[in-house]
């Protein structure tokens, strides 16, 4: 059965999605979704083990050898991402029951969890696939299901946010389709390894330039890279709480992975960097993203929206690190991706706790929460420290590596922006802390309201993430070690 692991990683959630539609009880649907997420996590860990022991795994779907058929190809990089996505999925689902019970009508729960499983299928499929068109198909599975999941938010603005995301996302996907089509036109193949062999010979083709441009634009839309980030803040702010947790820690991360897969593997990285100047595109946009999005975050009154803008900025750090164009920079970007999934996932999970108990995430409603939801707010503080990048947190490790990669490349502006962005982060995190601990509720109804601490089923996963944020600040053997091996393979 070990030989089938790459396929099982994707096929198990794929099969459970239609099965979930047939489940009638809300609790059973949740149980199925949780069980599948945990099984995916176990498979991801097994794949990490297999890849470390035996190197790259290639699985021929349908039994046809590539490039005739579709190949699943698990290398260090994909195993790394699979672990992040499946781990996030497990933690989200374990914590999700109460929150979803409150936000989604019970008779719709089975469809809702089915949509979630489809999203998971899509994300895992993108990572596992070694075929450019197959990546497009699974990208669409994950995108369509995330539009649905976002539209299920309580506010009517969730609908407009989902619609906006649908339009932008489809434009992005169509651009990627055009890019893949042009690549196919030039080479006659869709297999990533095969394309990699054939691209150096046609590097002067103007068609290849156009393909590169369309792929860059399409993937940037999916990553929410400045100035194509406009869909993200509304989508994250209005989606159901647990969906924000899940998507913030996975969706854009997988898009960053697609960026790496296409431009450091499908296009050999020296061609992307030297002939197509990928770094010169990414660096300025990332710098603007970090500064403007952090700045805008400071003025948000809705905390989910604030954290969403913060995500745009954090994505900027990752693309900045990748845009530096060195192996060290890319490793830093991967470590950043890993740590940010933990920290931002945790922060949004804390917001889910708050929403569950007080029904709002407006800044003014945070007044006095420090005393009334002590465990949730303490987690916000500790995760906030990680987001800022205080030493001994995972956030420090990731910022440190980005900073040193920037300095190593002699890119002083980038280095200054990395530090400056952290200072802006202090400002908006401080706003939350100030309200939670140093203000009392203004309205009489809030003052007299009895507010319970979040249920244990949510606090435990939340504190697991807090612990992760500190653990990976000290022990970097997986987050850094595995990422280095992954990136070294791309840079040969």
């Amino acid at each position, binding site marked *: 059965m070990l030989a089938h692991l790459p396929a099982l990683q994707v096929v198990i959630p794929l099969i459970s999605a239609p099965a979930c539609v047939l489940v009638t009880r809300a609790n059973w649907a949740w149980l199925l979704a949780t069980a599948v997420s945990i099984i995916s996590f176990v498979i991801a860990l097994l794949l990490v083990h297999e890849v470390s022991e035996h190197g790259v795994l290639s699985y021929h779907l349908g039994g046809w050898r590539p490039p005739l058929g579709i190949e699943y190809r698990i290398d260090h990089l994909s195993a790394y991402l699979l672990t992040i996505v499946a781990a996030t999925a497990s933690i989200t689902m374990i914590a999700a029951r109460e929150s979803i019970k409150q936000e989604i009508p019970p008779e719709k729960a089975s469809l809702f969890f089915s949509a979630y499983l489809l999203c998971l299928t899509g994300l895992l499929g993108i990572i596992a696939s070694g075929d450019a068109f197959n990546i497009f198909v699974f990208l669409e599975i994950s995108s369509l299901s995330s539009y649905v999941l976002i539209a299920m938010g309580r506010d009517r603005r969730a*609908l407009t946010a989902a619609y906006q995301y649908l339009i932008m996302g489809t434009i992005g996907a169509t651009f990627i389709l055009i890019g893949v089509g042009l690549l196919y036109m030039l080479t006659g193949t869709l297999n990533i390894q095969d394309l990699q062999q054939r691209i150096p010979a046609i590097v002067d083709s103007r068609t290849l330039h156009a393909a590169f441009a369309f792929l860059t634009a399409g993937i940037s839309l999916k990553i929410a890279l400045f100035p194509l980030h406009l869909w993200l803040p509304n989508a994250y702010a209005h989606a159901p709480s647990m969906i924000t947790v899940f998507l913030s820690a996975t969706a854009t991360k997988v898009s960053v992975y697609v960026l790496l897969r296409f431009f450091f593997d499908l296009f050999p990285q020296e061609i992307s960097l030297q002939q197509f100047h990928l770094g010169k595109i990414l660096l300025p946009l990332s710098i603007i993203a970090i500064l403007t999005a952090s700045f805008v975050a400071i003025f948000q009154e809705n905390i989910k929206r604030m954290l969403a803008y913060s995500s745009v900025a954090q994505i900027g750090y990752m693309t900045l690190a990748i845009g530096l164009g060195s192996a060290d920079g890319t490793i830093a970007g991967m470590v950043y991706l890993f740590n940010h999934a933990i920290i931002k996932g945790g922060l949004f999970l804390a917001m889910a706790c708050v929403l569950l108990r007080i029904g709002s995430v407006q800044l003014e409603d945070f007044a006095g929460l420090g005393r009334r939801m002590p465990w949730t707010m303490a987690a916000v503080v500790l995760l906030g420290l990680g987001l800022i990048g205080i030493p001994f947190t995972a956030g420090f490790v990731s910022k440190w590596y980005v900073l040193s990669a920037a300095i190593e490349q002699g890119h002083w502006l980038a280095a200054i922006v990395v530090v400056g962005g952290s200072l802006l982060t202090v400002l908006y995190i401080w706003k939350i802390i100030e309200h939670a601990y140093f203000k009392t509720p203004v309205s009489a109804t809030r003052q007299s309201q009895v507010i319970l601490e979040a249920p244990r089923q949510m606090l435990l996963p939340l504190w697991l993430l807090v612990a992760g944020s500190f653990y990976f600040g000290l022990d970097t053997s997986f987050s850094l070690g595995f990422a280095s091996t992954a990136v070294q393979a791309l840079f040969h």
Partner: protein
Amino acid sequence: MITGYFNYWVVIILMMMGFYIVISDSNLIKKIIGLNIFQTSVFILFISMSKVKGGTAPILIAGADVYSNPLPHVLILTAIVVGVSTSALGLAIIAKIHRAYGTVDETIIHEQDDLQDEN
């Protein structure tokens, strides 16, 4: 040279007209229609590259030896399905937006949201 690329150029113009509708029109339904046109034109681009002069449809029959390339056909069959799925979902969201806002015009929706913020 001109005849060799004429097809592609017209198709690109069609694509861009569809794309224009998506990003310029404020009516949500018309945006979806624009998206359809944009995507259908991309399909034409793919099918154009599969064509071989003097070839026939890739259904093997005695007497034919030049066939057009079947692979882009397969890809586009998938892409058509993806397209109709996206449209269906978009239209469902529009129906709900109409119920929540009473309009399907982006500008009016934004005005309503801003008004709500002020209150």
